[in-house]
């Protein structure tokens, strides 16, 4: 997690500002009278729960219906522990564990409630974090229902579906605001932290995140448990505000309300959660007024029960059709500040930096400190005797089809190795086996002597294998900086000796100008640069590049050759690349393997491969014998039987 001296300023300030705006709104409303004060406090505590939920939903992209259930648990725990004994004797006189005779100070009760609820959430998270998104959401739905059911049925402990009354009313607006303050800060800081970044990387692109060394299950788990803490706090606070709770208080109506709040403002944004809470509360009040059948301009409106709830439903539905991200999507209030500042800058035109094309990026090269290492045509370091990567007789079976058939290859430290072959030859499959996305059906893969064939991809990445993809797998909604940072932080944690700060990497690849832009908005060539920079940020010993020259014209691929050589020289890594651009590959690689129909059919230097007859056949196909003429009938089909 973030160290104290490294607390990022922007999220902190952004959180404070968002909180302040919300708090002012709440405080203003509270001046209206007793009822208004109550509503304001409920709004603030709802915000605690919604922002708490947002910690999970926003960072993992998985919607949760179960946080209300966690709030219920905390509410009941604090209620049971802190309510005076004489009241409990009539509500839960026969409570187990002698709880009817226990009365703890409110603060202690709240603390215990939060801790116990978090533990329960941690247990649930153990199996939930292994499920894919929709399945996990369904499980959270089950949590809601099960908690409700347990609360209703464990009459001895909870008083059943009857209201548990007599809870000490201690929540005041200042306390609620304090809790909200803590929650908002935690949410913003977590999102900006290493753990939050990992979760968001998984949210954006699970495959890429795994390949950058992020453990998918673990990152989801951490978000879930942290969010439980604050939701529990909210639940406890509401108990001490209302003075009485019942299971139905924490069931579908509250869940709908909070989902509407979360979804309206923007699931992926803390500011959005606050905004949504505010708007929905406002709307509720209006609707409650209308639903009671008021007389407006001489017309008596009919009384409509549950008008607010119907409105929530409509809000949710319409929002998803019109703007699934919510009002703010994933933008925080900091973004607004940026835009205001940018507008002021426009008035005084500043020299805008040009968008780096791949050519420019390659040409700017590494910053002066590292330039001593590179000269474009530096000869490769002599291959050391021991291969870095040994792929030994690997086979990949996909439902009966042998995508890779008994292939073997070796990569030596520091060399640039090419993997070529016709479409469908199995090259990307082979790469995926090396990086751990697929597990080979048979054979072995060793990295620096260590068996990696059955390791999951995030562990292989942590061992120093970085990669890019044929179709870019960037974290599209995250900024360029965040994309690179995800991998850099993994290096920092698992291979500190090769860790380089993100700023340095961004400078090396000429990406400083675009570091604040979302990766998905960049032109294609720059996206490819970012993907390479991200892989290099891992500080890999082995870099796998899948079609780095795709879509590049001749000038661009020329620059790419220099750029890749420079990476090898600076990082001192071996590079294994796939590409279809033969001039590019023949020029860049020191050695080549040729794959066809899953088998390695040739290996050698570029010159040897160019002269190789088998390779020519593989790419162009053989001529059939001159005597073959069209044979009519189904004999040709008979030939196809195998």
């Amino acid at each position, binding site marked *: 997690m973030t160290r104290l001296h490294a607390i990022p300023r922007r999220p902190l300030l952004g959180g404070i500002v968002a909180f302040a705006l919300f708090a002012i709104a709440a405080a203003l409303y509270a001046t209206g009278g007793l009822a208004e004060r109550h509503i304001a406090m409920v709004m603030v505590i709802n915000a605690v729960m919604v922002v708490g939920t947002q910690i999970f939903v926003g960072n993992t992209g998985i*919607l949760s219906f179960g946080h209300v259930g966690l709030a219920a648990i905390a509410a009941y725990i604090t209620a049971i522990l802190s309510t005076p004994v004489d009241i409990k004797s009539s509500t839960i006189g026969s409570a187990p564990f002698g709880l009817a005779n226990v009365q703890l100070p409110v603060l202690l009760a709240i603390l215990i409630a939060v801790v116990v609820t978090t533990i329960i959430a941690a247990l649930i998270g153990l199996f939930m974090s292994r499920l894919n998104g929709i399945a996990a959401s369904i499980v959270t739905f089950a949590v809601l229902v099960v908690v409700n059911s347990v609360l209703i049925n464990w009459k001895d402990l909870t008083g059943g579906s009857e209201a548990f009354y007599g809870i000490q009313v201690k929540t005041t607006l200042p306390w609620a605001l304090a809790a909200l303050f803590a929650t908002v800060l935690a949410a913003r800081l977590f999102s900006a932290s290493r753990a939050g970044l990992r979760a968001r990387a998984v949210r954006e692109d699970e495959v890429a995140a795994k390949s950058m060394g992020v453990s998918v299950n673990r990152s989801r788990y951490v978000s879930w448990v942290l969010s439980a803490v604050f939701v529990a706090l909210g639940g406890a606070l509401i108990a001490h505000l209302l003075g009485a709770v019942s299971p139905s208080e924490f069931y579908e109506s509250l869940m*709908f309300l909070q989902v509407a709040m979360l979804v309206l403002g923007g699931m992926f944004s803390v500011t959005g959660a606050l905004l949504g809470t505010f708007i929905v509360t406002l709307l509720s009040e209006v609707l409650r007024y209308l639903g009671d059948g008021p007389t407006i301009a001489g017309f008596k409106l009919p009384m409509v029960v549950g008008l607010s709830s*119907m409105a929530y439903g409509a809000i949710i539905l319409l929002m998803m059709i019109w703007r699934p991200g919510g009002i703010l999507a994933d933008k925080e209030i900091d973004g607004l500040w940026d835009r205001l500042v940018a507008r002021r800058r426009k008035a005084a035109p500043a020299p805008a930096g040009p968008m780096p094309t791949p050519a420019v990026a390659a040409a700017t090269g590494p910053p002066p400190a590292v330039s001593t290492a590179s000269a474009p045509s530096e000869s490769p370091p002599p291959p050391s005797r021991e291969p870095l990567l040994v792929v030994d007789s690997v086979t990949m079976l996909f*439902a009966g089809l042998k995508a890779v058939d008994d292939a073997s290859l070796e990569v030596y430290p520091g060399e640039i190795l090419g993997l070529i072959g016709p479409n469908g030859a199995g090259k990307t499959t082979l790469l995926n086996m090396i990086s751990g996305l697929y597990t080979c059906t048979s054979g072995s893969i060793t990295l620096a002597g260590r068996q990696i064939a059955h390791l999951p991809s995030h562990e292989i990445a942590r061992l120093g294998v970085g990669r890019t993809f044929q179709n870019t797998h960037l974290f599209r909604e995250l900024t360029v900086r965040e994309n690179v940072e995800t991998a850099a932080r993994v290096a920092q944690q698992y291979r500190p000796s090769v860790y380089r700060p993100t700023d340095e990497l961004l400078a090396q690849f000429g990406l400083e100008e675009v570091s604040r832009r979302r990766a998905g908005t960049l032109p294609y060539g720059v996206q490819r640069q970012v993907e390479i920079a991200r892989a290099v940020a891992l500080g890999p010993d082995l870099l796998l590049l899948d079609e780095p020259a795709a879509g590049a014209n001749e000038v661009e691929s020329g620059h790419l050759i220099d750029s890749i050589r420079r990476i090898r020289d600076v990082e001192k890594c071996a590079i294994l690349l796939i590409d279809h651009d033969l001039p590019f590959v023949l020029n860049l690689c020191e050695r080549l393997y040729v794959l066809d129909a899953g088998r390695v059919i040739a290996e050698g230097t570029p010159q040897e491969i160019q002269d190789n007859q088998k390779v020519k056949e593989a790419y162009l196909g053989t001529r059939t014998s001159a005597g073959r003429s069209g044979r009519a009938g189904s004999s040709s089909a008979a030939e196809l039987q195998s």
Partner: protein
Amino acid sequence: MNTVGQQLLNGLTLGSTYALMALGIAMVFSILHLANFAHGELLTICGYVMLGMRYTGAPWIVWVVAGIAASTVAALAMERLAFRPMRHANPVAMMVASLGLSILISYGFEAFISPRARAIPQPDWMNTTLMVLGLQIRIQYVLIIGVTALALLGTLLLLRRTVIGTAMRAAAEDFDAVRLMGIKANRVIATAFGLSGFLAGIAAVLIFAIRGSVSPHMGFALVLNGFIANVIGGLGNLWGAVLGGFIVGLLETGFRAFLPSSASGFTNGLLFLIVAIILVLRPEGLIAPKSAARV
């Protein structure tokens, strides 16, 4: 002996209703990746229509036909009005939208019909019992299991023997390739929804045969059972959903029957525990999808 047999029968009966619901949900999920919260409301719609028919004095069978027709039409309307505009949205957004729809409908019923449960009386012959193999069996149970079996068989035949059913199975595997056969995407999706509505209607009729009443929010807990059945069976797998439904029904009945009465309220909790165990062992569900996703 009798008790076990009796409970087995009860479990199968309950499981049948869950299996039908789960199948309806799976049908839409397999093609669109939409976990439809509003599926539960298809059942309440059927119930309220049956309730309405009650006041016309028509015989019970007419209520049934009307109810099933209503849920089928409602499902088609849902697709056309709510989900088609969202055709290309991500699964989470679609699921949230279905939640919104579910809220709108269920609270609409509460506001404009009644917040309380309303009775749907069953025909008298439902209560007669038969003696089979030493067990006292109510006709209801036979009906439920029998109708479910027929419905499952019918669905199987539809999926396997008809062109549109085959197209639906194909669409669950590769939607674009189905379009390359000249088959219109809208038609396949609409059929899937219609079928899910039809199955929901049947499930509703059977559930009302046990429950005897309809209430505005009953869909909420019911749809959860359908979802859970899907998750343990393997999301997107039709027969996994059916299997899951039966498992949930049997477990629920088993817990309720064989737990000491003080703990019987905790069937939900225990069910959850079992589901958790299943998912720890097999996160993808019991019948895992066969396709290996290519990167």
